[in-house]
């Protein structure tokens, strides 16, 4: 699973991801094989009371593949990192759960996604959420900065899964939790890299 990739190949994958997600940032509708936006959130049983408090444009931009909060609620005051935060839905749900005493950082490789997340954030009154543009493979945070690291539909896109997991572990406090929703292989992928990235789309 951990592929050894030449730096050029890694760049190719990353630029492929950036290109695809520049489109998704405008709206994921019709670009995935599973329901996105509000329909996806309802099917995954996100807490309707929390969804009600968020602007509809953030609900629309959801394209996750699971509900990380189904693994247990976050605690008030928690510091949370959302790797591959996309339009920022999970980050904002997390912000609601941790309250004003907590904080949330969402990061994403795609500049368009970060812009979309910031637009979504501006429609809320959260003062403790930031979205930043960088890769989950190099986390610019001190050791032990977070209580929870979550990630929704991102790891399978990443060539350096092991590296990203090590980074996630490093920035977690001892006893901190990792909550992931992702895709795992049930068959064989024989396709080339661009097709692999494409396999996320119809």
């Amino acid at each position, binding site marked *: 699973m951990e592929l050894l990739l030449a730096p050029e190949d890694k760049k190719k994958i990353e630029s492929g991801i950036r290109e695809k997600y520049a489109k998704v940032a405008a709206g994921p509708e019709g670009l995935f094989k599973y329901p996105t936006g509000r329909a996806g959130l309802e099917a995954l049983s996100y807490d309707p009371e929390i969804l009600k408090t968020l602007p509809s444009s953030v609900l629309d931009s959801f394209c996750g593949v699971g509900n990380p909060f189904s693994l247990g609620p976050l605690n008030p005051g928690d510091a949370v990192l959302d790797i591959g935060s996309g339009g920022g839905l999970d980050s904002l749900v997390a912000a609601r759960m941790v309250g004003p005493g907590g904080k949330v950082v969402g990061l994403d490789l795609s500049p368009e996604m970060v812009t979309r997340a910031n637009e979504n954030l501006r429609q809320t009154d959260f003062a403790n959420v930031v979205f930043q543009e960088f890769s989950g493979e190099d986390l610019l945070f001190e050791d032990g900065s977070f209580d929870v690291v979550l990630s929704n539909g991102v790891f399978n896109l990443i060539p350096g899964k092991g590296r990203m997991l090590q980074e996630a572990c490093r920035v977690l406090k*001892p006893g901190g939790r990792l909550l992931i*929703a992702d*895709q795992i292989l049930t068959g064989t992928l024989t396709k080339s890299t661009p097709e692999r990235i494409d396999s996320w789309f119809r």
Partner: protein
Amino acid sequence: MDFLALMKEAGFGGAEMAGDTGFNSSAVTKGTMFRAKKGIGEKAMSVEDGLKKYREFFEMAYADGALDRKMKHLVALGASLGAGCEP
């Protein structure tokens, strides 16, 4: 190597799959939940790290302070002889 093994190698403990989500992005993949914790079953300290920590402790204990280093060593010698230890 599978994802759970990668999680363990990265230093996570209690790594487990926690069910399918029903959201599949292609015919050959399926949505799955994972969870793990930092700190349970973390990688054990290496022998070198252990020795280094012991040396740090030893140096700190014998550093010149209210008693100087030589005096501390003599006290330790007396104490270990008194306790019947091999100094």
